[in-house]
């Protein structure tokens, strides 16, 4: 059977097995654990102690607690990845054996955070480099060793490029003559107009 939250593929065996473990936790506590997992997916720190306390009643072993976090991570991030709405997710999880209350609670937490999750996933999508900032300066060349009276403006550009793997910015300096700079600006404005038509 195909599931949307698994990308229209079969549900992995381990997920199926862990869903039955989820059923052993009360639906109220499951919703709170969900909230913690969502915090971690959104880049905040996870409170492992809190989750351990919430799972005490269900008498889970330490391996099971980690598996619970892993399966919730899988369900929530994959549902966001494939843009599954809360109701479809709830019905698919119930098909896999999660009791109705658990599924409803889980999906309610998911729906609240769905767009933030998707924004965060969009931000960490593959990207090779990005422009951090641009600094510029306009000079006026008076004279040079080649020609006594030059009298021309010169633009100095410093592009700060951030490489995704390093996280630090790399400065890319260049000097552009007035004519070349006018052409560059015109072309960039055309590109910007094209981008605006897509937004």
């Amino acid at each position, binding site marked *: 059977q195909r599931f949307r939250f698994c990308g229209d593929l079969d549900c992995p065996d381990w997920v199926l097995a862990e869903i039955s473990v989820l059923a052993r936790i009360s639906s109220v506590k499951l919703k709170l654990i969900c909230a913690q997992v969502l915090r971690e997916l959104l880049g905040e720190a996870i409170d492992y102690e809190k989750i351990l306390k919430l799972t005490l009643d269900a008498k889970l072993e330490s391996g099971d607690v980690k598996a619970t976090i892993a399966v919730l991570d899988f369900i929530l991030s994959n549902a966001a990845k494939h843009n599954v709405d809360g109701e479809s997710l709830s019905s698919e999880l119930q098909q896999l054996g999660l009791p109705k209350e658990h599924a409803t609670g889980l999906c309610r937490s998911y729906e609240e955070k769905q767009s933030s999750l998707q924004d965060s996933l969009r931000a960490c*999508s*593959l*990207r*090779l480099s990005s422009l951090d900032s641009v600094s510029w300066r306009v000079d006026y060349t008076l004279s040079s060793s080649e020609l006594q009276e030059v009298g021309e403006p010169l633009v100095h550009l410093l592009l700060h490029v951030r490489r995704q*793997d390093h996280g630090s910015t790399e400065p890319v300096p260049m000097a552009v003559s007035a004519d070349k700079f006018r052409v560059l600006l015109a*072309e960039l404005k055309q*590109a910007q107009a*094209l981008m605006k038509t*897509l937004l």
Partner: protein
Amino acid sequence: KLNTGVDTVQHGVEGLMYLLTESSNLMISETDFQDSIRVLGFSDELNKLLLQLYLDNRKEIRSILSELAPKLPSYHSLEWRLDVQLASRSLRQQIKPAVTLKLHLNHNEDLTAQVLQTDPSTLLHLIQQLEQALGEMKTSHCRRIARNMK
């Protein structure tokens, strides 16, 4: 404690190491091992001890030795993105899809990444080739070899 010089003890340890690693390496039988160490002229009791030491530890020694073999970079993960080029400086009104891949490799705990780019038809060809390679495992030729290895 052994009442001998440091050098003697060191040589003794090195000798034992060599004896055990070479024997485990070649997976020699009990009789071959016994014949080999008989030449050294030790007491029977010592020979029996050495044989027991060899038999008890050879499996573990072999698993450690297998990890010392040189390894190629192995697959760690793959990131991808699908883009469509709509216009460039030279040509507007384009539709040019491209897939960018970042292949993360693991070479002896060293993580490296290779960035590749391809168009959809090459990607389909790549997928076809990889599926063919997987399919090879199911041919009778491969199955026969796999059966004989067990």
